[in-house]
């Protein structure tokens, strides 16, 4: 079965991977994304994640639906953590089960790339000398660009 969740609790990575496995599959690719200590040379103390939760869940569902149309995969599980995360803690897990590994690797890569572009979740980097909300690095959905000139 597919699933997508937001949680403030630590994520059980193996549990996510196991939940997506159906009998017809032969490979599960799991991404474990976790908190990095250094970003562009600056030391992070911890991260804080916030989401527009109902919309984030809808967007996660859309990503899964699209991935299942575009790749030969069986099941997808996505769990994203919210709240305060310490260095090394897992922030996101994406598991993709498929009959053969290639499609699972490709779908997992596509899913994390799209999640970072479209799902309304934001991270705040907290440093020893300040904090900053990170703004997306990749091109956001085109229809939503908004640079109003007054």
């Amino acid at each position: 079965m597919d699933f997508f969740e937001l949680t403030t609790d630590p994520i059980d990575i193996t549990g996510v991977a196991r939940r997506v496995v159906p009998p017809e599959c032969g490979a599960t690719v799991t991404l474990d994304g976790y908190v990095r200590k250094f970003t562009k040379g600056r030391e992070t103390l911890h991260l804080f994640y916030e989401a527009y939760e109902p919309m984030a869940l809808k967007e996660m569902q859309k990503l899964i639906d699209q991935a299942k149309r575009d790749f030969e995969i069986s099941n997808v599980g996505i769990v994203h953590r919210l709240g305060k995360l310490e260095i090394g803690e897992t922030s996101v897990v994406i598991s993709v089960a498929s009959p053969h590994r290639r499609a699972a690797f490709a779908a997992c890569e596509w899913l994390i790339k799209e999640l970072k572009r479209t799902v309304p979740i934001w991270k705040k980097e907290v440093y020893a000398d300040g904090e900053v909300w990170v703004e997306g690095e990749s091109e956001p959905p085109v229809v939503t660009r908004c640079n109003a000139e007054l």
Partner: protein
Amino acid sequence: MKVNILFFGATADLIGSRRVETTVKESVSARDLIDQLHADYPILKDRTLLFAVNEEYVPENTPLNNGDELAIFTPVSGG
């Protein structure tokens, strides 16, 4: 008619609020309301902002209806 405006992350910090209820005239579009927000909150100027109406990304000429929820936020950074 009334529209609820939601702010998240950086925009919530900039505005100093997470939710504002505003009264607008009929036939206002998302774009119209965002222009109004830029006028009311100059601190948003020069920011790249995304928006959603009722939890969906929509074109900016989407007309708003009474009770709609317009969310304003900076490019997302999950993962």
